[in-house]
């Protein structure tokens, strides 16, 4: 099915962050459709649902109740059906350990949540417009963590 928009999914338990996220995309002049989920389980349920339309990019918060970001990442990477979905880690912390772990598990990019709304918009627009094919092939630990 040919789409003329980018389907974006976010799993984050924090309501404020979900709000910033959707607001940012609203303000961005990019043709996107954003779905948000309160935790990893909800996201996975959606992904596994046969009628769901698979997203282009999934943004994963790490610190979530029920099923956290790492567990969620593992589940997604297990299933070949989701191989074409780009996964962006979207977290408050940027501890070395988290960055390392998610990189090893196969995430495509790591975003530290900015403390400025304009920065957030800039980061999200950057991520959405990345040529994922190209980015993934040249992926390494140095450009994994998105710096602006």
């Amino acid at each position, binding site marked *: 099915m040919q789409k003329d928009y980018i389907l974006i999914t976010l799993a984050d338990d924090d309501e404020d962050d979900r709000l910033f996220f959707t607001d940012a995309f609203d303000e961005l002049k990019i043709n996107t459709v954003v779905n948000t989920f309160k935790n990893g389980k909800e996201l996975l349920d959606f992904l596994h649902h046969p009628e769901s339309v698979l997203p282009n990019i999934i943004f994963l918060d790490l610190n979530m109740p029920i099923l956290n970001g790492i567990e969620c990442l593992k589940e997604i990477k297990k299933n070949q059906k989701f191989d074409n979905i780009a996964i962006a880690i979207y977290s*408050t912390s940027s501890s070395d350990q988290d960055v390392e772990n998610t990189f090893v598990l196969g995430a495509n990019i790591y975003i530290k*949540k900015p403390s400025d*709304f304009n920065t957030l918009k800039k980061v999200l627009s950057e991520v959405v417009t990345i040529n994922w094919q190209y980015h993934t092939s040249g992926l390494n630990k140095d450009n994994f963590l998105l710096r602006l």
Partner: protein
Amino acid sequence: MRENKFKTSKVHKIIFTISLFVVLFVGAVTYKHIENLSQSSKLVVHTYEVNLELEQLFSYIKDSENGMRGFLITRDENYLNPYYTANSNINESFAKLKKLTKDNKQQQQNLNELYEIIKKRLDYNGEYSDPDLSRNIVNTKEFKKNFNESSRLLVAIRNKINQMTEIEDTFLIKRNSIYNEQINLTPILTLSILLVTILLIVYAYYKTNNDLEKLKEANNTLNKAFFLNSQAEILSSFGTWEWDLVTHVTKYSENFYRILGYEPYSFPSTNDNFLTFVHPEDKEIVLGIMDRVVREENLPPSTFRIIRPDGEIRYFRATGKLFLEKLKHKTVLGVTHDITDEINNNKLLEENIQSLEKLNNELIIFDESSRQAEILGNYGSWIFNFETNEFIYSENKYRLMGFEPKSFQPTLENLMDHIYEDDRELVQEAFENANTTGEIPALNYRVVRKDKEIRHFKTVAKSFTDLSGLESMIGTTQDVTEDYHKNELLEERNYELEQNIKELSEFNHVASHDLQEPLRKIQTFISRINDKEKENLTDFGKDYLIRIEKASSRMRILINDLLQYSRTNRGDNVFTQVDLNEVLANSILELSQNIEDKKAIIKYDSFDVIEGVEFQMQQLFTNLISNSLKYSKEDVVPEIVIKYKKVKAKNEPILKEDSHEVYHKIKFTDNGIGFEQENAEKIFLLFNRLHGKTEYQGTGVGLAICKKIVENHNGYIFAKGVPGKGATFTIYIPKYI
């Protein structure tokens, strides 16, 4: 053997001498006897001669009588002829008799008397011998008277002769009996000589035969001895030799050739030939032996080397002795022993003894040191015999149990008595298991000491088999009571520490994540208001919004600094080679905006590679430079000078370390506001600030982090300040290689 032979020859000599004497004696006796015999036979003949002569005499007298009578009767002168002949015959016979009876006085006397009578008789007859006269007187009275007288004399003569004959007859009888006796003795004597001689011959034959047998036996024994000797020579690798000093011929025993490395009799045995074998350095010794053996009686053995035809060097020991055989026949008899093996063995033995001595010495040292170690280390060792259930304790093992060393004979039973009741089964089991498994792995138990104090013991043991094949168990027991208590305390502390670390890491998490999250949201909301609602606010509201923004951003800095500080706390960072030139370049890059803003000048040396944690060194440099920039004077262009030098600890009095340790010395000097020297140490304390936060932005964490990093690198950091002039931070990082 030799003694026996000698004795035999002596006996021989004695027997021979005795035999000689006996034969001589017997011969002499026989000679004497035969002489006696001939003497007696002569005497018998003599007696007969005397008797015969006497008869002859009487017969002559009768003849003379007859002649006279014939003449007187006939007056024929012819009858006078026999008368005269008879008279001269009487004289002759008488002289003969005189001669014959010379040895017998009695007969001589008788003969003299007879002579007187005969003379008288002849005188009577003589008166009538004249033919002219006698014719007239025959019938005279005187004549008659004379005639009677003459007849009477004749009878007297006759009697005298008979008397003499009788004497001679008695002699004869006597002499005959002697003669007969002697004649009878002769065959006995001869026979006895014969017998004695036969006896001697038989005895001599017996003896000789006997000796011959003995000689044969001796010869046999000698042959055996010779055989044994040659075997002995081979086995003990020695050879014998004879050197005749008269003929200068030398004879070697078979084995003498062998020990020289040759087949027996394969070369002529001469002294000169022998000398060719001798090691050139030892020729003097051998010549010395040859020289001295001729003169000296007892020669001590000399050792020298020879070279065998295959080039092998062997050690020989030789001695000889002058042996005087027959008259002036001088021979040197000698023995040469190949002592190479002996020497080698001796050498080996010596080496063994030396190494044994060394070992023994080491053992003594080891023993003493282990004795001391046992006391210092609070342990004792023991050996357990499975068969007897007995122990051998080291001195300190007794002490550990509260006893004087060697004050009792330790057994498994009395060990059990000393073990704390609850642990007895454990120990008993361990020993039973050890009998099959051959070891006691670290066993902890309690012992009630003689003074009733309960001590914690730890034992390890392993079975071993000694050289004699006896299997026993050797073990070490340590009094670990102090350790046990310390361990208890340590475990407690460890637990507390673990709790603390857990809490700290929880705090870390809270600080890094949970605290940052609300702050980030506050800041995002502020940015939202700034973007969307700023126009709708009054000036008052705008001012407050700015203050909220500032406060929240300060909180962010604080949280970040704190996180950084806690991260530097961790000691598990691995040291790698760190190029300080790169580190400085990165720091300058990181602070480039700041440097540009302040238009600061940074001068620096070239650095060496050091051993350290890269990100920490990065932090250190960044913090120090940013510190200098922060406290720069507003009206002066900030200038930061970074100097580098390798130094020795003893040349840096500030280190108070008199060693040759090499340090990397890095000095940061700035021309900023400086500080009072009295605050030099205070500035490194956490959250300690010398200035109000409105004057200079800062959390008071930066320098504390610097100190922490330097200490993590086992180094030193010193601050020196002059107010209004500037500050200097000096860092010493040890050089490891």
